[in-house]
């Protein structure tokens, strides 16, 4: 009986030492997976998934602390591709309302923000809110949106005090 326990414990300890040695010298590289997941997301930085950008959401997905279906602009297609890539089940897209802190207007690459120039008071709040610096304008002067850079993330709509920004289809 005694020899049995001695044999087992020594065996276990020997193997444990081997594993510790192996884990010491191998380098850890994690972010290549986050890159891959981020590339699948639409990356319009709309923060409607509750994370401040697409990369934080991708990191949350890889760390398995966020479900795959929080991205409204990505739609069902992105959920399916994420599930396919990570080998997980594809749940249906969470309705935007269910996602914390979301703008009422769903973000989409097919739309762009348009500033009604004669209402704009130049308060510069939208410039700070825009994740991709697509709005230009000097303090107290009229601002406007650069159509090529705007991703339709609708983040500039809530902060505008005079509500002069609207989301319109890109190819009107």
């Amino acid at each position, binding site marked *: 009986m005694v020899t049995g326990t001695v044999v087992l414990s020594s065996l276990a300890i020997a193997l444990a030492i081997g594993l510790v040695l192996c884990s010491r010298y191998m380098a850890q590289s994690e972010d290549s997976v986050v890159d891959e997941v981020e590339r699948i997301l639409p990356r319009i930085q709309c923060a409607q998934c509750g994370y401040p950008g697409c990369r934080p959401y991708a990191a949350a997905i890889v760390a398995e602390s966020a479900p795959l279906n929080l991205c409204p602009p990505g739609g069902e297609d992105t959920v399916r591709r994420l599930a396919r890539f990570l080998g997980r089940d594809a749940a249906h897209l969470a309705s935007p309302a269910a996602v914390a802190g979301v703008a009422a207007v769903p973000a989409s690459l097919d739309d762009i923000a348009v500033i009604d120039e004669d209402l704009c008071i130049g308060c510069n709040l939208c410039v700070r809110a825009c994740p991709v*610096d697509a709005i230009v304008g000097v303090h107290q002067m009229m601002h406007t949106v650069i159509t090529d850079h705007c991703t339709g993330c609708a983040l500039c709509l809530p902060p505008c005090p005079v509500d002069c920004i609207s989301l319109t289809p890109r190819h009107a």
Partner: protein
Amino acid sequence: MSTGTPIARGLLPERLIIPMDQQAGPAAVPVVEVGQRVRKGEMIGRPGGLRSAGVHASASGTIGAIREGPVPTVNGLTTSLCVHLQTDGRDEQAPSEGWPRERDARIDAICNAGIVGLGGAVFSTAEKLRDDAECDLLILNGAECEPYISCDDMLMREHPLEVVRGALAMMDLTGAESTVFAVERDKPDALRAVREAAAQLGDTRIEFARVPTVYPAGGERQLVELLTGREVPSGSYPPAAGCICQNVGTAFALDRFMRRGEPLTSRIVTVTGNGVAHPANVEVPIGTPIGDLIHFCGGYRGDVTRLILGGNMMGYALPGDDLPITKAGNCIVAAHADEIRESTGEWPCIRCGDCADVCPPRLLPQQLLRAATVRDFDQLDSLGLNDCIECGCCDIACPSQIALTERFRQAKQAWAVVSQRAAMADLATRRHRRKLARLAAQTEDIHRQQDDLIAAIGSEDSRAMIEAAVARASRRRGESDTAH
């Protein structure tokens, strides 16, 4: 059907609709106003930038109107600015400048004369000749792009001398060492005519190749591989394989411009199909409404259900016959219901691979179809969707009668949208990262300033700074007390 009679001429409709956007490049810019009187061959639109070409009046008359209208172009119906010309039947010829001396002036003249590839792609001929990539071979494409079209065949039979002279001029312009005339095997008399013309001109640099009449032998990529064994690299044009392809019609137009200074104002169009009384090849002024052309060929016969611009394989259906013939229109088919394909997609794909056997660029349409259904764009890329020349062979060979070519067209459009969005997403990511970096740098500056201030507290000059500030404040308060 239409090679029995010689080329019919003399068609001159009273109304011409000449579109500005007739070439693969940007549209021409009109240089005439409404009501102005123009003579035949006078420029009514100058080239609108690189790869564009001039547009000329196909007959003398007065400009009725210049407005946007539907125009059949290479890849479907688009709207373009059109010059409506009311012809007066006097057929006055505008005077023309001579054939310039050196090479660049000649190429510009060709561009202004509106000479474009008449094989169907309407690529600006001047652009092709100007491109001085080392092309050792000039290929004259006498092979018809589709089975029923015979305009090139008739042209070679009736004007072999002009075609060969045009080819020689092209050789001089491009500096190609040799020229190959590709004529299909089932057109012996066209080949004989062109061979005699070459002998007559006594030029030995021209060779002749009899090409098997297998659709799509007329496609330039297939012709280059057939004649030279070289393959045009994916996504590029024949000059990348050292050859230049020119249609025999383009050579004829170049010769006519060289010798008689006439710009490209008319082209030969095959009118065929059971729905036409007398199928024939007609020399058609550019801008002739198709209705007039059909009327010139004896009008409709039986109930025509579909009017196709181009051949049965790649031509597309037109909504009405009031649309004009442009430089790209090489054939009109008026078809009855029984000779064209009605239903599509009767059965699911049984993966038989007949389509892969007939596919000229050697793709796998059955796997492309599956990838398109699943919208797997990476798979479509590796399967070579961009190399699909939409020739339609797979549709014909498919026992399940699936509209494969149409599915691939839709897949290409969907893919274009997806890749465009991916590009925008990349841009957004870069801009977002740059913004985060800028914000981080700003907060870092603020922190550094605060650290400096904290470090400065307690040193002598900081106490002096504080007292100076206190003094300034009290002085200010003193003035404000006296002011009230």
